[in-house]
């Protein structure tokens, strides 16, 4: 994906880390299949994790319906959630993951710390 916005920072992960959810900074792509992956703040301990909620605010910039996915990379396995047909205004989309996609078992905090996540154009 490419960096965009009225005052974007220099890297994709920083551009996507826009807490205000507006066009000041964001990442974008018009190409289906393109996605970003970001490293997560490793704040968890080794305890069992009940579930992981991936969340992003997404929008499209014209009237053509776009479909966004949320991508999760765990170990050598990359998976993506369901279709999120976005609007022209930002809306929060989320997917729930209860099992580690790489093992098929429950997750630990240590495993989650090492996962990567990001948005995808799945139109």
């Amino acid at each position: 994906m490419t960096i965009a916005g009225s005052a974007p920072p220099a890297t994709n992960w920083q551009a996507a880390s826009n807490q205000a959810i507006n066009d000041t900074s964001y990442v974008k792509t018009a190409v289906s299949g393109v996605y970003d992956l970001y490293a997560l703040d490793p704040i968890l301990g080794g305890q069992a994790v009940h579930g992981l909620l991936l969340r992003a605010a997404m929008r499209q910039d014209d009237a053509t319906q776009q479909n966004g996915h949320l991508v999760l990379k765990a170990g050598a396995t990359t998976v993506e959630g369901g279709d999120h047909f976005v609007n022209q205004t930002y809306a929060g989309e989320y997917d729930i993951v209860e099992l580690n996609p790489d093992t098929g078992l429950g997750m630990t905090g240590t495993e989650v710390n090492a996962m990567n996540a990001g948005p995808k154009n799945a139109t």
Partner: protein
Amino acid sequence: VTLLYHDSHGYIPVSAGAATQAYLEAYGYYYRRSGIGPLTPWSVVSPGRFGRGRCLSVNATPVVAGELNEIVFPVGAHYTKGYFGCFVNVGAGNDAVILVGAHDAVNDVIMLSATLWPNGVVKVFMGEGPSSVFLGQSEAGVWKKETDFFLEMFSGLNNVSGACEVRINTKPVVSLIAQDTIPAGTAGAYADAFVFGAVNVVGKVCAYKIGDFYLNDDQGTKNNTFLGNVQPRTMVMVGPAPTPV
């Protein structure tokens, strides 16, 4: 999937009012019975439960019915049995009734609600709090003002075999079985949202903090019961993935 939603509120803006509302609405929360007047009382505080993260904070005295009344989050899934949990801290000056419950978004009806009364009692109603059908209550003093506690609620929706259990810090304080838990006029409806807020608010002080939500249904083999003292956490991105795409 049985875990329907969880949110630590760890990423909401550290500001009051409109920014918080915009954030909540962007992520699918909506204000029920809006007529929203005093937005500025909405703010976030840090830390939240366990001294980590943020939560929502309300401190206002609404003068018009509907102000700051209830906030609903649709989970996009119908359930007839679900488990909702959240951290709550009721402020010293609060004299409103704090409500959490299961909500039918299609009919915009609160199906079953657990309410916190100023004397430390939990009361359960079919419908929206005190104006609806009383089902049962706890002993006095099961929760305290100015004390963090984790409230969990099981909602089982049925006209005959409905059930509800409310737990405070994992201890059951209200357990009801064989109840009618579907309000009249909503037969066949499901819960598909959770709701929190305050009732009996006009002219009264609403002062509470709430956050760290989770919501499950009872389907599948994982996360289909009370989760107990869980701690939702927000993990933000801190860099590119090690292997660039």
